[in-house]
């Protein structure tokens, strides 16, 4: 399922399922393009995500770097995925909820 974008006050990109390397390769260009082109705060919604790969962590880091002052958030993170961000040392930076 490709991420959906709702450019209202925030750019919300919804992800679901297994975000393995192959999946990330499919969606990377669109996601990077959407983030780079947004002047609004960026939100990655991970409701329903059950696996994240190194490639997805890189996308998150990219999102945070691009959003800068506009803000970047990751929301709807279940305990399995929260743990991944914690181990990676990225939970504080990405403000995973």
């Amino acid at each position, binding site marked *: 399922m490709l991420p959906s974008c709702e450019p209202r006050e925030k750019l919300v990109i919804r992800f679901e399922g297994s975000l*393995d*390397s192959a999946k990330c390769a499919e969606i990377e260009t669109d996601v990077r393009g959407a983030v780079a082109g947004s002047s609004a705060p960026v939100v990655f919604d991970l409701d329903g995500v059950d*696996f*994240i*790969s*190194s*490639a997805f*962590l890189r996308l998150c880091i990219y999102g945070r770097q691009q959003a800068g002052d506009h803000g970047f958030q990751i929301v709807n993170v279940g305990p*399995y995925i929260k*743990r*991944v*961000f*914690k*181990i*990676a*040392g*990225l939970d504080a930076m990405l403000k995973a909820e």
Partner: protein
Amino acid sequence: MHRATVSPLPDVEQYFQRASAAAAVFSQFTQQQTDRVVKAVYEAAFAHRVGLAKLAQEETGLGKWQDKVIKNVVASQFVYEDIRDLKTVGIISEDPITGIVEIAQPVGPILAIIPVTNPTSTAIFKILIALKTRNPIILSPSRKAKRSSDEAAQICYRAALEADAPEHCVQWLDDCSRELTQALMGHKCLALILATGGAGLVKSAYSSGTPTLGVGAGNVPVCIERSADVPFAVEQIMISKLFDYGTICASEQAVVVEKAVAEEVAAEFRKHGAHFLSDAEVIQLERVAFDAAEGVMNPAVVGQPAAKIARMAGLDLPADVQLLLAPQGGVGPEWPLSSEVLAPILAWYVAEDFPSAVNLCIDLNFHGGIGHTVSIFSNDDARIKEFAALMNAGRIMVNTPSSQGAVGGIYNMLHPSLTLGCGTGGKNITTDNVTASHLLNIQLIARRRENQRLKQFDLNLYYDESLDAAAITRAFNKNF
């Protein structure tokens, strides 16, 4: 398709950002996903066993490439078979009676020190056990063996990525400086150090504050007890001592033979091309084999053939000499060749009887080899056990070559390993052959299982000082 690229990463933080991300992704892997990675790495390493062995020998100038092939086989095939079926993910045991459930968790990013003596085999071994336990690994190669260690790491990493392992699950340092390695050792994100190397480096690891599985030095005595099969014993010692020209730390350093069989043993050694040095020749050899100022073996003789060492010492010996036997009058600094020398050189001792032989072995064991390995050739089970109990050694080889025997899997059922713990005597935390099971944190779920004897016991009895342990025990066990 993933491509393994070597990027210069001088920044310590970058190594750990990558390792932490790899650890995070790895934490999600199932046993099946993990084992798929491990199998792929084993197969790739095994496929390159000869090329890596030749590269290691060519780069270091140590040992024999054919024997390094065998080391690579042990590190890949034998280690893989040993760890293949180990449960290392999630719930690994569940006991309904005790109510205890064990869950395996990775320890986290591992720093692996790789020695010059085994630059490809140790790399392969540590990568396999790290990936089996879902731990990302950073290799710190020896300066003198960087190319071969790096090549082994690259081969393993490429294979891991092809099997969908997390990116940067294997990294290797471009800079082999002691400064960078020490900076990594003390980093807060480092979970564990696998320190296979010299005493100074192992001590640095332990001093860093990061949990460490280290090794100690060996000074292996081999006791030939009178019940030994002498031709067999000498043959096995030759197999061991000439393996990679003596570079394995568990190789025999001294032969201690009971007088009753000494002449027969000596004759057998001569049949195998060994030369017994005269007193004058011992002195000549000492000068090249041992660095008196430093009190350690001279690196120039490590892993060199006996004939070459003989020439270095100015000894007029046959060109096909296989082993140099140096009769010694004692053990200690005044007898340099009673110390460890990783080369085809053996100190030679004749003991009056078995107790005297054991005394000499104790002296040798405690002279720089505490906790490592000792060896005995005997067909007397009681004497074997007595010998073992009197030594301070994690491994007691019986009727086998000590070099190949200590690493496990070839001549015995020890876990195949290129990191041999020497226990507290060697300032290590274990005497085990380190393997995958050492790289896990095991969690225990403890369900309610009340102590039934305590439940029926009147606790007020504990406050009665007049009741001794026997009286309390009787009450505690009443009706049980």
